[in-house]
């Protein structure tokens, strides 16, 4: 016992003997003004742009970020509670850019934009840190989008397909299911070899709590990280949040994995940045946003990418969300983000209130690169469906005027009504791609023309059940071959016919 004690004492002695008090010159500054989450600092002449600062206060260290380098002062945002900082407090430069913990340790967790756990499950176990700001991968390391992201939402997977590495904007008014689409997409990534990151910017804590519970319940939290900058957090954290989320995604990208990241939502992010900019006295521009608000989002969304095999072959798919005011798509932030992204999913209030949920407007929504990522089987059926949907929209407007319609038009209208029924889908119930192909196949081949419109949803659910029970082989073949051969098509037709023979409302 005493020998171990001696040993420890000896070791301590050796350590103390080794110790040399280093005297080094440091650059420090002093706070000359503090308020509204913004500090103005004098001194620190060597400070660099977006360098981390350390405020030494009576109640401990508080971190900040240098954003404005002026002639004789520095404007900094405070990351966290700024009430502890007083005029005259010492400020030090940390010679590094803001970093967040990354790695497998953050999966399944709820963290704040600085990477600290806020879900009460203990500290984040991470040995690696990534800077929040990083230059996006260049042209040499990229390749075009070619693998699909299966969102599990029929209207999207068919008409506005999303590829891995794509940036697809979800845009619409408040309360019409923007977040719901993103959450469904996350839930459907189970078993798709995809990591998910959900960045909540300025969201109500109650909404996020409900969302985390839902993700946990559906098993989606096993591959998902939630980065939360709530409505009550200071604007500085809201500003950092999407970059922090992307840094966490980049860790998996560097390992050659695929990541889906949702920014919910970027309009609040722009508002937070506007607040910071105005407080830093940067000149306001249109809608009082600062001049670099385009760069704010373009540098973020450029980090979404598909890398080629030489660089690991990973991808980051971004689903930014933008909230419009009364459907005004031509406001400043919506037009900016529309022009940055590779397409948008536009949600229409009219459709939503008519009961077409998800309220995806097939006419205004586009996907500029995703169709090359669709699997062949889906391409075959969806190509015809796009045409059907477009024709239906045109005819539906036209048919309101008169009742005298020829047989051909009537048939098209009838089929369009069934298409609209198929596109209706409940929340939290993503449909696997094989099932989607099955129902779309039935529609484009006229196999559902004799099903009454109001029974379509019953028919659809019944078909899925029937296929799972007696057509599992066919579903598997679709999933594996990803193409429809003539033989397979015949088999599917037979399966659907068999199913229809069992339905009493179809037997005359």
């Amino acid at each position, binding site marked *: 016992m005493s020998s171990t004690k001696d040993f420890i004492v000896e070791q*301590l002695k050796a*350590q*103390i003997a080794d*110790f040399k*008090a*280093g*005297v*080094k*010159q*440091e*650059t*420090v*500054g002093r706070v000359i003004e503090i308020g509204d989450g913004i500090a103005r600092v*004098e*001194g*620190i*002449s060597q400070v660099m742009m977006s360098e981390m600062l350390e405020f030494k206060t009576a109640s401990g260290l508080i971190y900040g970020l240098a954003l404005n380098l002026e002639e004789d002062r520095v404007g900094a945002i405070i990351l966290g509670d700024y009430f502890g900082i007083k005029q005259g407090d010492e400020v030090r430069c940390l010679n590094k850019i803001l970093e967040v913990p990354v790695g497998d340790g953050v999966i399944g967790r709820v963290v704040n934009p600085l990477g600290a756990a806020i879900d009460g499950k203990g500290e984040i176990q991470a040995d690696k840190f990534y800077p929040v700001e990083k230059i996006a991968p260049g042209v040499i390391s990229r390749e075009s989008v070619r693998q699909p992201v299966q969102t599990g939402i029929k209207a999207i997977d068919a008409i506005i397909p999303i590829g891995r590495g794509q940036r697809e904007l979800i845009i619409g008014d408040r309360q019409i299911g923007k977040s719901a689409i993103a959450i469904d997409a996350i839930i459907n990534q189970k078993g798709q070899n995809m990591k998910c990151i959900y960045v909540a910017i300025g969201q109500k804590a109650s909404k996020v709590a409900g969302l985390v519970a839902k993700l946990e319940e559906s098993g989606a939290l096993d591959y998902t990280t939630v980065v939360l900058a709530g409505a009550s957090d200071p604007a500085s954290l809201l500003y950092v949040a999407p970059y922090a989320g992307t840094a966490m995604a980049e860790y998996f990208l560097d390992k050659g994995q695929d990541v889906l990241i949702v920014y919910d939502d970027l309009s609040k992010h722009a508002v937070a940045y506007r607040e910071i900019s105005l407080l830093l006295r940067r000149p306001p521009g249109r809608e009082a946003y600062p001049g670099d608000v385009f760069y704010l989002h373009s540098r973020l969304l450029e980090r979404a990418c598909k890398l080629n095999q030489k660089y690991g072959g990973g991808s980051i798919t971004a689903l930014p969300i933008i909230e419009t005011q009364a459907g005004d798509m031509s406001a400043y932030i919506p037009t900016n983000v529309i022009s940055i992204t590779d397409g948008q999913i536009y949600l229409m209030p009219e459709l939503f209130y008519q009961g077409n949920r998800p309220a995806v407007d097939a006419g205004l929504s586009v996907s500029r690169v995703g169709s090359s990522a669709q699997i062949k089987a889906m391409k075959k059926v969806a190509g015809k469906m796009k045409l059907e949907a477009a024709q239906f929209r045109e005819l539906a407007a036209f048919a309101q005027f008169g009742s005298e319609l020829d047989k051909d038009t009537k048939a098209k209208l009838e089929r369009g009504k069934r298409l609209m029924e198929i596109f209706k889908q409940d929340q939290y119930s993503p449909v696997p791609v094989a099932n989607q192909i099955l129902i779309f196949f039935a529609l484009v081949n006229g196999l559902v023309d004799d099903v009454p419109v109001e029974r379509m949803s019953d028919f659809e659910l019944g078909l899925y059940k029937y296929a799972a029970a007696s057509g599992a082989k066919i579903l598997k073949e679709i999933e594996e071959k990803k193409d429809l051969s003539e033989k397979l098509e015949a088999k599917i037709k037979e399966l659907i016919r068999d199913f229809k023979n069992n339905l009493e409302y179809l037997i005359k």
Partner: protein
Amino acid sequence: MKNTTKQYALALYETLDGKPSGQVKTAIKKFVGILAGKNMLIKADEIVAEFVKVWHEKNGIIEAEAVSASGLDKANVKLLKKYIISLAGAKEILLNEKIDKNILGGVVIRYSDKVVDGSLRNSLEELRDKLIK
């Protein structure tokens, strides 16, 4: 556009630099006249403070602060001044001495935005951090 206090101080320095003392008096009188004409006399104190800064900067003078636990003797002050001159590359040092028992021992030097912390307290803290690791 209004001129800043710094611009006034700089202008004053440039007019006075290298002039014999007789002309300095008239120059200052004229300068005050200009300030009165521009309604800037309220800012006179700030301009004087800026002028001191400009004067120090142009002549390589640095104001430094040395904090010690129990005061410094003359030999040490001389050594310190030499040390600061070598650190900052200045010609002359105006040293303010301060006494702070909290630093326990050694000396803390501050000049412009630099700090050289050679206090016993800091060394002890570093030792503690090292031992915790």
